[in-house]
């Protein structure tokens, strides 16, 4: 029976309460990168005066030496000692011809330690750590009063770690974006840009081809004077005209000499063969003047509209103008005209996926760098 008042028991109880349980138990063996390793040591570090902690597992292979498996917020990095000293430039370092951007510098301390190490780590042992990233690679330095050591690592999925060590359950849930986590958008920027350029060229080509092969034939051209309150020009009926070829559109163009006035046109396109009529109204109005701000104008005395999918056949057009003043007007019908509007809409639609891609890529990088010393800046990984 244990005496709870025994000081030694209380010491053991406090130790048990503070002891950190590694997610990968010491002594666990597994294969990483095709080589067998055993977990022989575990460190938990914390940024001094801040709540950020991460775990470091020391792996050992009698032939290949030591490796570190570092975990922070469910993001894992497998690293090893660097074989040389990286070349340092402002804000970045170069190691084995790869440029790494500075990610963060922090003063860290050991808050928990267990297992075997090549040195004798102590709780509260402090060092300045620096991380430089070139996802999925990461270069880290650890500096204390005696030495500086460099290690190079690469991001590894938590699932791969669990599989390598045949661990039960699932790895810790990932939070945010890891410093060295490869972007799912990396490498897709150039193909996306090339695809957009290809689609843009094809869309312009389609429009140009139809601009060349379309009829664009003037089928009716009506001129008349309109005098309100009289029978003159109250309704004009065109001569029968033929719309030939495949089902396509008809462009209606109205021009007038209206000034500071409006005219409302009721137009009816009647298919003499089927009796189907397309009746529609268009209004033109042009106003202008001069005030304290200078000359102004509003509206237009012309108009353009398209009748979609008009079948071929014999047609007549009736035009009934209505307005307050006498005007001269002209209505022209042109068969089979490719609309530039559809080209612009297509280009707009084709721009949407690249825009979404760029936005998501930037959001991913912003999330990555939000954990760094450069939280306000983004990164272009292409």
């Amino acid at each position: 029976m244990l005496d709870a008042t025994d000081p030694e028991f209380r010491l053991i109880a406090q130790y048990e309460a503070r002891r950190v349980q590694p997610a990968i138990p010491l002594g666990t063996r597994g294969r990483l990168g095709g080589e067998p390793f055993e977990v022989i040591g575990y460190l938990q570090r914390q940024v001094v005066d801040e709540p950020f902690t991460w775990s470091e597992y020391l792996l050992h292979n009698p032939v290949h030496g030591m490796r570190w498996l570092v975990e922070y917020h469910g993001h894992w990095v497998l690293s090893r000692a660097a074989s040389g000293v990286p070349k340092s430039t402002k804000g970045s370092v170069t190691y084995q011809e790869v440029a790494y951007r500075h990610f963060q510098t922090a003063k860290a301390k050991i808050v928990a330690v267990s297992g075997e190490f090549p040195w004798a780590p102590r709780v509260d042992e402090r060092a300045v750590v620096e991380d430089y990233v070139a996802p999925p690679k990461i270069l880290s330095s650890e500096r204390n009063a005696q030495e500086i050591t460099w290690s190079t690592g690469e991001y590894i999925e938590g699932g791969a770690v669990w599989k390598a060590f045949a661990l039960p359950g699932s790895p810790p849930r990932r939070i945010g974006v890891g410093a060295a986590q490869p972007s799912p958008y990396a490498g897709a920027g150039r193909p996306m840009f090339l695809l957009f350029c290809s689609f843009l060229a094809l869309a312009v080509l389609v429009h140009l081809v139809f601009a060349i092969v379309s009829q664009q034939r003037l089928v009716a051209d009506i001129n008349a004077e309109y005098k309100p309150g009289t029978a003159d020009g109250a309704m004009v009926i065109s001569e029968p005209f033929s719309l030939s070829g495949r089902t396509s559109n008809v462009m209606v163009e109205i021009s007038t000499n209206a000034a500071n006035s409006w005219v409302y046109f009721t137009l009816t396109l009647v298919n003499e063969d089927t009796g189907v009529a397309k009746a529609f109204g268009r209004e033109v109005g042009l106003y202008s003047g001069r005030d304290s701000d200078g000359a102004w104008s509003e509206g237009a005395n012309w108009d353009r509209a398209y009748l979609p999918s008009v079948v071929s056949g014999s047609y007549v057009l009736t035009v009934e103008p209505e307005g307050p003043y006498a005007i001269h007007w002209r209505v022209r019908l042109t068969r089979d005209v490719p609309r530039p509007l559809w080209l612009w809409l297509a280009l707009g639609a084709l721009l949407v996926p690249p825009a979404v891609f760029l936005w998501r890529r930037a959001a991913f990088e912003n999330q990555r760098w939000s954990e760094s010393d450069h939280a306000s800046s983004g990164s272009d990984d292409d």
Partner: protein
Amino acid sequence: MIKAYVVFGGLVLAALTWTHYTGWGPSDVTEEKVKSVRNNPGSYRSAYGGRSYTGAK
């Protein structure tokens, strides 16, 4: 995402080709069935006929 863009872009180009070929487009045109113009002059007068239009200003 690239594959999805290929499919999306293909659909947009197909739609562009189809609208150009058929002359299709959204329309505010109203259709009505009328008799032959020559057999019944005036029967095709538009639905707007008869009302008094006051204009915007």
